[in-house]
């Protein structure tokens, strides 16, 4: 997945699941859009479906400090560097 594809997918999630329209890529999601810890857990489930595999507890904990869309994309890129998207994943499906 390219960076642009990830951003497109994440913005789709935010619009569809979180009703947050076009957040700035460096917006503090909690402060500016009310994106809370419950939303973060929901987002991780979406990322698991996108990648096609279950994240480990350690991988999930690494996501807890994420505050911006760009940081979410960094996180997904770091995951795909060690474990590529599986064929059953929903990457690319919007």
């Amino acid at each position, binding site marked *: 997945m390219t960076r642009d594809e990830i951003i497109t997918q994440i913005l789709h999630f935010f619009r569809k699941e*979180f*009703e947050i329209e076009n957040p700035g890529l460096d917006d503090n999601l909690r402060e500016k859009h*009310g994106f809370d810890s*419950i*939303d973060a*857990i*929901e987002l991780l*489930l979406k990322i*698991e*479906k996108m990648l096609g*595999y*279950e*994240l480990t507890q350690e991988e999930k904990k690494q996501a807890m400090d994420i505050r911006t869309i760009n940081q979410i994309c960094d996180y997904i890129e770091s995951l795909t560097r060690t474990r590529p998207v599986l064929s059953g994943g929903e990457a690319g499906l919007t």
Partner: protein
Amino acid sequence: MERRVVITACSSITPIGRTKEEIIHSLVNGISGVKTLREDGLLSSHIHSKVFGTVDYPVSYDFKRQHRKTMGPVAYYACQVAKEVIGAAGLDQGFVTSGRLGVAFGSTHGSPTVQRDIYRTFFGASQNDFSTIGAVDYLKSMVHTTAVNITKMFGITGRVISSCTACTTSSQSIGYGYEAIKYGMQDAMLCGGADEYDTTTVAVFDNLLACSTAFNDTPHLTPRPFDTMRDGLVVGEGAGAVMLEEYGYARKRGAPMLAEVIGFACNNNGGDLILPNLNGIKETIRIGLKDARINADEMDLISAHATGTKMGDVIEAQAIYDVYGNLPGVVGLKSYMGHTMGSCGAIEAIIAIYLMEEGFIAPTLNLDEIDERCAMINHVVKLREQPVRIATIQNFAFGGVNTSLIIKKMS
């Protein structure tokens, strides 16, 4: 220190209407809210009872996603009536978030709809490695989901009571809210209960042979409290909320005062978890009267629990007669809408307020031929125009829990 407690707003979602006007219309015209049980693809085909007290009109919500994300259907009901009573009471935001307002709100078992989704996730896990329980599923389904979604939505920071005692859930909510204000712990309490459309509860009562089955083709003819042809209860859905306030505070701010809560009692039969208990019910009624500091002959209206079961109605009629004699008019409001479970106490209290305001007692629907074992009390069988000054709402639950709530018209 004992303080007076008044009801300053009420709101309900019932199978016989939303507004006071709609509900009164149903009561005056004998319109039932009992409909055919919907197919749910899980339990409905196995259930012998095919009737349900149904909210079949649209209820509109305008909750933000920030709030919706932790709400199952039961919390939608709860938050909607809560929103309406906060608005109708006219409490300002500063008071609502001050800690002086608490919430007493419950349901029978949270959201069964969401719980079913959780079980689907469990049983589907072998085919899907990343299937797991959603982060919000517990918040949507937990037994205190109604109370805390209300606190979240409105920023309420006072005490939280979340009864989950089935049929006595919301009468406990109002009673415990009343006590919290009466004894100075809170200045106001938002109280009530809700239950969503749910066939699990129907299945439970059906298995216990307690559900009505003889009127599956004519749902409006059941339940039939105190009638010779009664054959069991009808489960229903709904929500009811009232705002309770300390009298002095309500008067000072010029709040509307719909009625005063003057007494409450709750006890347990101390034994069987299912069978109704004459002594337990009589004791609840007596404790309630003592708390209200009134005599039995001052009671004008009894809203009986009256589910339409064979034994329950006989025991309740006997208890009413033993304590009140045959003076107060008795109505079984479940005859109109079935047993709305966790919301029935609040809905019945709200309807009692409406009857006080309108000056009549609605008849028990479908009470065509009174069972002679229930005949010793003063059944209202056709609309009776009479002033109602004091009314009691009686509710009894599985687990042997009994409540008696007593309200008085504002003078």
